[in-house]
């Protein structure tokens, strides 16, 4: 799985378990992540590998059929918005 880092151009804060992202340079927008999204984003900011984040989530949540797909599509969305950058 591809690993990521947070794009240096954005700013963010964890507020009551949810991350608020401010993007003044790329798309002039703000984004709010839900609890799981915030967990993934925080983990990326801590330098965790994507496969480790996936394993942690699978261990934490009963593995529904789409969990892995959901993680990947969430990462794709962040990547498309350039909020995260591949770091391999």
């Amino acid at each position, binding site marked *: 799985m591809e690993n990521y880092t947070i794009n*240096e151009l954005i*700013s963010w*804060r964890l*507020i*009551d378990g949810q991350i*608020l992202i401010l993007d003044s*340079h790329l798309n002039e*927008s*703000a984004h*709010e992540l839900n609890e799981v999204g915030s967990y993934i984003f925080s983990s990326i900011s801590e330098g965790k590998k994507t496969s480790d984040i996936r394993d942690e989530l699978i261990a934490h949540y009963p593995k529904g059929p789409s969990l892995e797909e959901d993680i990947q599509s969430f990462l794709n969305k962040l990547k498309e918005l350039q909020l995260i950058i591949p770091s391999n």
Partner: protein
Amino acid sequence: MSVLTKKISEARANNQPLFSTLEITQSCNLRCKHCYNFDRRGEESQLPQKFMKTSFAKDTLSQLAELGALSLNITGGEPLLHPDLIEIVTFAKKNNFHIRVKTNGLLLTLGLAKSLFKAGVREIDISLYGTNEEEYLDFCGKGGFEKTIAAIKNAMIENLKVNVSLILHRKNYKKLGQMIKICDELGVFYNVSDEITDRHDKTETKSTLGLSEQNYTELLNGPHAYFFSHENPEKNLFCGCAKTVIGINVHGHVFPCIGAPIFCGDLHQESLKKIWHDSKEMNKIRNLTSQDLKDCSNCEVIEHCSRSSGSALLNTGDYTACDPQALTYAKARKINKE
């Protein structure tokens, strides 16, 4: 509702200081006539503390991040004078702040603009005081126009998001068109600042430099009237002070807003969290209701008023009073509309 609007209204309801200002020095390389910031009674060398200690600034930034501050406005005095500015910005970026620096621009070389962006500054607010060196000399105590223009260009080259604050007062308001032309030619965003307050040392500025009703009427009838024709049909007179906004000065004193210097606590004595949540003054301000603004409840021009409580405080000594400058502007707007 946009994500940001939603988050701001949640922050307001939960008293979360999304917007913070850190004054890292009161020293400045200019001497603007209208400046409220430094004490005119003494020399700058007599300031009790010239620069915020870097270790103190870092500790304060950690506490601000913990409280939920996202936007960080680094101000002065002139913040580019701080010898450890890059170190402070780097630390703030590590703590994920959205960092903006407010400056007069005189020291903003291309190299510094590059370093600031690299360290994490994303926005820069540069004040423009006039349209040539003579006007700077007269108003700011020394030349600086060309350097300011160079600073704007340098910041743009280095990808900083630039806003130019056009500082308007009684002596230069007729130059607004020229100032706007300068910005348009540079292709830079700008806003107009027409708030002149009395100084912190209580020497008066607004009566000599603040725009008069006649000046304001001229502006309302001029080609840039959209900057001045503020209307307030909802009669809303409250800002984010002590709710979404917090200010900390060079001495570590915590205020509801850097523009409303009501002492709420000293970071050398107490934690930011304790001051923010428990300070009597902070809670008093966040619990004010429209009934507490006694002058305003029967005001005939309230629907044209753009009152700022900080200006009211600086101009009258009372955070809840009528701000005479807001009254002047509101009257001009009302008459102009009729």
